[in-house]
C-alpha cells in the first residue's frame, strides 16, 4: 500500500515534468539559437557622402561607374542660367575587390587631375549579438596628379611628375545611430608636394563631418563639411560644405546637391578657393552612379 503511494507520487511528478517541457511555447526555442552579431549595412546609400568618402563600401565584385557633375556658381544670375552653362566633372570607376577592400580611380576636368585611392575597412559596425562593434572604422589613402600641360607656369617649379602629386590619408569613424541617422567624422592629412605660396603648409590637417538623415525609404538628406586646421593664414575662402539629397531609384543612386566646392577629389575640395554660402557662391551638382556586378556572389 505504502509502495503504491510512493509510485503514484513519482509517476505524477514525472508526468508533470514531461508535460511542462511539452508546453514550451516555441519549438524553435529548443534549438537554443542565439542571435548573432551582424554587420550594419546601408549606413549611407553610396560610398561617397557627397564629395568625401563615406563609411559605406562597395560589395565584393561590384564595379561602380560614377559621373560627378558640378555646374557653375548659382549667383551668376539668369544670364548664365544660374551656373548651368558651365560644368565641371569627374568620371570615375570604383571596384570592390574584397568585402572590406575597394579601390577607385577618376579624372576631373578641373586641373585635368587624375586621382586614385584604396579604402580598407578595419572595423565594421555590428548589432544584434552579445558583443557588438559600436562603430565602423575605415582607412582611405589616395593620390592626385595634376595633368595640365604647364601647371606651375611662372612659379619656377619644373613640370615634373613628382611636383604634380598630392597624397591624402583619412580615417573614417562612423556610426549608423538609427535606421535614419548616420554620422561620421574623418580626420584627414593632405600632403601636397608643391604649394605655390611659402606660407601655405605642405601638410594640411583637416577634419570632415558628414552625415545623412533618411527622409523616406528612398530619399535621404546628406551633408558633408570639412574644417581645415592649418591652411594659409588669413585665407578668406570658405570651408567646403555640401548639402544634398540621395535618391535611390532602384538600379542606381542619384545624388543631387548644392556645394561651394568645385573640386571632386580630396585635394581639390580641401584646398580650392571655395566660395561663400552666404553670398550664394555655390553650385548645383549631381552624382550619377551605376553599379555593375562583375563577379557574382555565391553562397
Amino acid at each position: 500500500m505504502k509502495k503504491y503511494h510512493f509510485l503514484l507520487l513519482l509517476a505524477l511528478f514525472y508526468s508533470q515534468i514531461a508535460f511542462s517541457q511539452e508546453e514550451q511555447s516555441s519549438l524553435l526555442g529548443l534549438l537554443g539559437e542565439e542571435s548573432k552579431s551582424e554587420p550594419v549595412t546601408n549606413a549611407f546609400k553610396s560610398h561617397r557622402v557627397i564629395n568625401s568618402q563615406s563609411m559605406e563600401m562597395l560589395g565584393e565584385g561590384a564595379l561602380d561607374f560614377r559621373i560627378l557633375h558640378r555646374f557653375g556658381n548659382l549667383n551668376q544670375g539668369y544670364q548664365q542660367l544660374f551656373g548651368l552653362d558651365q560644368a565641371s566633372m569627374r568620371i570615375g570607376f570604383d571596384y570592390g575587390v574584397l568585402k572590406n577592400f575597394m579601390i577607385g580611380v577618376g579624372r576631373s576636368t578641373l586641373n585635368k587631375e587624375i586621382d586614385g585611392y584604396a579604402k580598407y575597412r578595419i572595423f565594421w559596425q555590428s548589432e544584434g549579438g552579445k558583443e557588438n562593434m559600436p562603430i565602423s572604422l575605415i582607412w582611405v589613402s589616395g593620390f592626385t596628379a595634376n595633368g595640365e600641360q604647364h601647371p606651375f607656369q611662372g612659379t619656377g617649379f619644373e613640370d615634373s611628375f613628382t611636383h604634380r602629386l598630392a597624397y591624402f590619408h583619412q580615417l573614417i569613424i562612423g556610426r549608423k545611430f538609427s535606421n535614419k541617422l548616420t554620422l561620421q567624422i574623418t580626420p584627414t592629412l593632405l600632403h601636397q608636394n608643391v604649394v605655390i605660396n611659402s606660407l601655405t603648409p605642405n601638410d594640411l590637417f583637416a577634419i570632415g563631418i558628414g552625415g545623412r538623415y533618411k527622409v523616406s525609404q528612398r530619399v535621404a538628406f546628406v551633408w558633408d563639411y570639412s574644417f581645415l586646421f592649418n591652411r594659409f593664414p588669413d585665407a578668406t575662402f570658405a570651408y567646403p560644405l555640401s548639402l544634398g539629397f540621395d535618391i535611390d531609384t532602384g538600379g542606381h543612386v542619384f545624388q543631387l546637391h548644392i556645394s561651394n566646392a568645385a573640386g571632386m577629389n580630396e585635394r581639390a575640395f580641401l584646398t580650392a578657393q571655395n566660395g561663400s554660402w552666404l553670398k550664394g557662391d555655390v553650385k548645383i551638382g549631381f552624382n550619377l552612379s551605376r553599379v555593375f556586378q562583375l563577379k557574382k556572389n555565391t553562397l
Partner: protein
Amino acid sequence: MKKNLFPILLICLTTTQLAFSQSNKYFSKNAIISFDAEGKLDDIEEIKATTKQAICIYDDASRNFEWSVSIKSFVFANSLMQEHFNENYLESSKYPKATFIGKIDPSNTLTFDKDGTYPVKVTGKLTMHGITQNVSTSGMFNIQKGIISASAKFEVTLADYKIDIPTLVFMKVAEIVKINVSTNLQPLKHP
C-alpha cells in the same frame, strides 16, 4: 483502496510514457531557402537569392513544424540588389527574421522509421516584414536509409506583406514570389 489507486497509477504512468515518447523532434540549423522574384521584364540580371542558414524544428508528436531565417543571410549574385532587398524591401534592420509556425496535416501518413516518400499538407502562419499571414502548401518528406529530408514550394504575394515595389522597377520585380525550402532533419538529442 488498493483497487482505487491502481487505475490512477496506471494512467499516470502511461501519460508519463506518452509525454516522453512525444519528444521525438527533428531539427536542422542549415536549412535552405531560396526565392525567385523575376518580374515580367526579361532582364539580364536575375532576382534570386538563397540562404543556407535557416533553422527549423519538427515535432512528430504534435506535428508542429517551425522555421526561422535571418533576412540578412540571403545571398544575391548582385551586391547592390542584396543591399536594396535588405534596405528597401524587407527592411531587415527593423524586421531581422522571417518565421513560419505551422502544422502538418494529422491525416497525412508520415513514419520516420520506414523508407519512402510522404507527401504532406502544411498550414501555418508566415511572418515577414512584420506581417503575419496564413500560408498553406503541400510539401514532401523523404526518408531514405534513415536520412530524413523535407521540402516544399509555395508562393507569396508581396503586397500581402506590405512590401512595396517602387513604380520605377515595377516590371522587374515580380508581385508574386516563388519560394523553395528544403532541409535535412536530424533527431534532437535532448527533449
